[in-house]
Every structure is written in structure tokens, then in C-alpha cells.
């Protein structure tokens, strides 16, 4: 019976559901995991790299630097879970909007304003006939002068929200409950970027497995000052392999210690 309401995206089922939108959400919960953590001195995004084939030509921008991370503007980056091709189309929209805003107002686009635009684009395909919705969720990390560092998610239904920490993609339920436990409740005690990166690594290690802590398998990006000392130049950029390796080592030691104490 339900098939009658599957075919048209824009038709409610008798139970009041939009199946195509729900299927899109379901598809994303099997995509490679991404998570974001808001820190006192920046925002960190982390994602699982799925395509590890030796045959990949790693000179390309997409395949080497990033499978799931995209720069929208200097001060905003995003992580993608879902159909990469759909994500590309939306990212072009986001980049265009960011540059148009800069051209009109001579100032970088506020993060939420941009997220809202992308959410609106997604929403339109859950309503207007004949086309399928965008099968992609985003995590947006950014900085603006109004609210400082910010982290948002956006899903295929057109919903978006601001978060202190959030995971999307595979294992997102387990990862989110872990983030809820580990993220400090006191708003004064926000994690530093260093702690945030370690927390991200720990969540991956616990929800997938310890072997994921490998610079080949995880990618980390962040929005923070390029030079932590000057606090100027807040940019979206990749976390270097060296920095990642040392963070991973620390987390591995911590987890080994924890399991050691449990055993004794």
C-alpha cells in the first residue's frame, strides 16, 4: 500500500509522512560518519574516509585533500554525508551565495544566513513536484562577528539546527549519545580545540573501532585562527597529519589505560 505514496515525493501518505524524504534521511544514516564539535577557540569537523583504494590518483583535490570536506568561503567549511554528487550541486550554490553576499555587503556572509539558504533549497524539493530531494546532510562550521564560532547541521527535509556537538552518518545515534555524555555541560567549560579534536577521535574509536585512528582513514578540518598566537586570520583549513598523529596517539594511550584499569 505504502508504494502509492512513495512515487510522488510531494504527496503525504495517509499517516502524514513523506516517504521519499524519510528514505533520504535513512540513506544518510548509512553514509560515512561525520562529526563536529564546537570549541572555545574554534570549530572542528571530522569525517571517516571510505574510499581507501590504492588505485586512487591522489593528486586530485577531491581524492587527496578531501572526500567529505569542502570550503564554502574562507571562514566557513562543511562536511558532507550522503550523495556526493548532490552535495556538489548544493556546495556550488553555497559558494555562490557567499560570494554574492561579499559582493553586496563587502563583508563575509554570516554562518546561519548561509545555512538557512541551503536549507531553503533543500526544502523546496520536498514540496514542488516531480523531483527527488537532495540526498545529503551537511555539517557547517564557521565564524562570524555576530555569534563567533558556530556549528550547524542541515538534513534533506530542509531542517537545520545549531549544535555544540553533533554526529551524522553511520553510527550517528551511538556517537551522539557519547557526545552528550562527554561534552561538558557547563557552558563556561567549553573544550579547547585540542580537547575537541581528541574527543572527536575518541568518539570515532569507540563507535567504529580503534584501527580507525589513522590519518589515512580520518580527515580533520577546522575553523580557527591559522596562528593560535595572533588570534587573527580565522580560516577554514585542514589539520596537518603530524598534529593528527599526535592527537591519535594520545587517544590510543588514554583508551588503553582505561581498558587496563577496567581489567584490574
Amino acid at each position, binding site marked *: 500500500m505504502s508504494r502509492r505514496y512513495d512515487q510522488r515525493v510531494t504527496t503525504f501518505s495517509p499517516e502524514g509522512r513523506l516517504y521519499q524524504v524519510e528514505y533520504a534521511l535513512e540513506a544518510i544514516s548509512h553514509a560515512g560518519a561525520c562529526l563536529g564539535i564546537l570549541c572555545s577557540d574554534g570549530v572542528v569537523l571530522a569525517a571517516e574516509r571510505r574510499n581507501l583504494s590504492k588505485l586512487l590518483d591522489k593528486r586530485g583535490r577531491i581524492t587527496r585533500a578531501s572526500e567529505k570536506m569542502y570550503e564554502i568561503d574562507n571562514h566557513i567549511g562543511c562536511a558532507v554525508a550522503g550523495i556526493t554528487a548532490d552535495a556538489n550541486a548544493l556546495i556550488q550554490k553555497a559558494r555562490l551565495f557567499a560570494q554574492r553576499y561579499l*559582493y553586496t*555587503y563587502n*563583508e563575509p556572509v554570516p554562518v546561519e544566513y548561509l545555512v*538557512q539558504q541551503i536549507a531553503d533549497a533543500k526544502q523546496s524539493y520536498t514540496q514542488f513536484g516531480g523531483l527527488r530531494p537532495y540526498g545529503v546532510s551537511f555539517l557547517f562550521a564557521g565564524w562570524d562577528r555576530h555569534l563567533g564560532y558556530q556549528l550547524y547541521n542541515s538534513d534533506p527535509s530542509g531542517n537545520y539546527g545549531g549544535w555544540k556537538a553533533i554526529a551524522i552518518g553511520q553510527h550517528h545515534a551511538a556517537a551522539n549519545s557519547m557526545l552528550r555524555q562527554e561534552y561538558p555541560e557547563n557552558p563556561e567549560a567549553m573544550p579547547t580545540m585540542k580537547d575537541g579534536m581528541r574527543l572527536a577521535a575518541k568518539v570515532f574509536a569507540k563507535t567504529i573501532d580503534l584501527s580507525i585512528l589513522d590519518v589515512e582513514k580520518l580527515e580533520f578540518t577546522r575553523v580557527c585562527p591559522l596562528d593560535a598566537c595572533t588570534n587573527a586570520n580565522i580560516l577554514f583549513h585542514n589539520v596537518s597529519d603530524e598534529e593528527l598523529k599526535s592527537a591519535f596517539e594520545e587517544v590510543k594511550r588514554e583508551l588503553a589505560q582505561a581498558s587496563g584499569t577496567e581489567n584490574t
Partner: protein
Amino acid sequence: MDTAISLAGKDFVLSAADVTAARSIVVMKEDQDKIQELDRFRLLSAGGDLGDVAQFTEYIQRNVHLYELRAGTSLSTRQIAHFIRGELARALRERPYEINLILGGYDQGEGTSLYYIDYLGSLHMMKYTAQGYAAYFVLSTLDRLYRPNMNLEEALEVLRACLDEMGRRFLLKQRHFMVKIADERGVRVLENAFVDASGTPTSSVTGAAAAAATS
């Protein structure tokens, strides 16, 4: 024929403009407000074709408000200045607005700022500026008398000197001016900013209307 003069003081922006609406050699009325209040903290003085002025300043005002509703934050004076410049530059290639503008405003945390914008789309941040024929007469006066960080009394004194100069050298006698201020309290009309020799106020719309009624 319109006169607009603005200057930035210590923590406020002062904008003055004449209140004459004229066509050809006929004065239609003397209570035309040429200083649009864009929002709580921004003043946009406009001179030029009256129809264009009304259309354009209202268009800008509504867009500033729309942005606020959509984005949940308000535009800074600097952002509004760039938006106006962009709109004028776009219109220049289609059907130009024949208007020249001065934008002044107060921003929380940043203080006051003042921008000169003309119909060709040029945009300059200024400490003091004037539009219209007034510029030929009062810029030198402002060059001489303007000091940074003036208080309201001192700024009004400079403005008075400018209007005196206009009265002395400009062929057209513009008798009535409206003065508005933008500061941390918001924008408002300065009633009775100037009082002439007989003690009747000459600066505000109310002053102008009263003078017109008695003559």
C-alpha cells in the same frame, strides 16, 4: 538645488538638509524631509530628483528591514553603504537614479560613521561632507572649522557657520533647514537646533512650517 551637510562628532552624526521642495522656479513647499530614517540608528540624506529620492530611499529602507527579518541580525552602517553603492552602480547601467546621498549611522561597539555616495556609485567614508551646491560653499568652511571629537554644541556651531556661509554666498536663499542626529540613543530630529535673531526656530520642519504660516 538640494543641500545636505553631515559631520561626525565625538559619538554622534549630525545631518542637516534644507526643507524646500521646488520645481523649476516655483517653491512647492518648505517642509520636505530629505533625511530618511533607515532604521533606529541610520540616517540617509538625499538630494536630487524628488521622485527618485522617494523611490530609492524607501527601497533601501525596506531592504534593510527585510534583511533584518531574514537574517536575524541588522546590517552595519558600512554594509548598508556598500549595498546602496551596489544598487546605484547597477541602476547606472539601466536607468540611473539622479540622486546623491550621505549615509550616517551609529553602530554598537563601533561608534559612528559617515559615507558620501553619489549617483555614479562612488563611495567614500568621510568625517564631514556635503552634497549639492552646498559642497561648493561649505567644504572649505568645514575644512577650517572641523575638529575630531567635537561635542554636540561645537558641532552645531560648525554647522551654523556653514549655513551662514551659504546665506552669504549662495544665489538661492535656503532659509529653513532640518537637523537630525544619530547616536547611541537612536535617530531623532533636533528641534530648535538653531534660533534666529528674533528667537524663532529656523532649523526643523516644525520651525519651517511655522515660519511659512506666519509669512
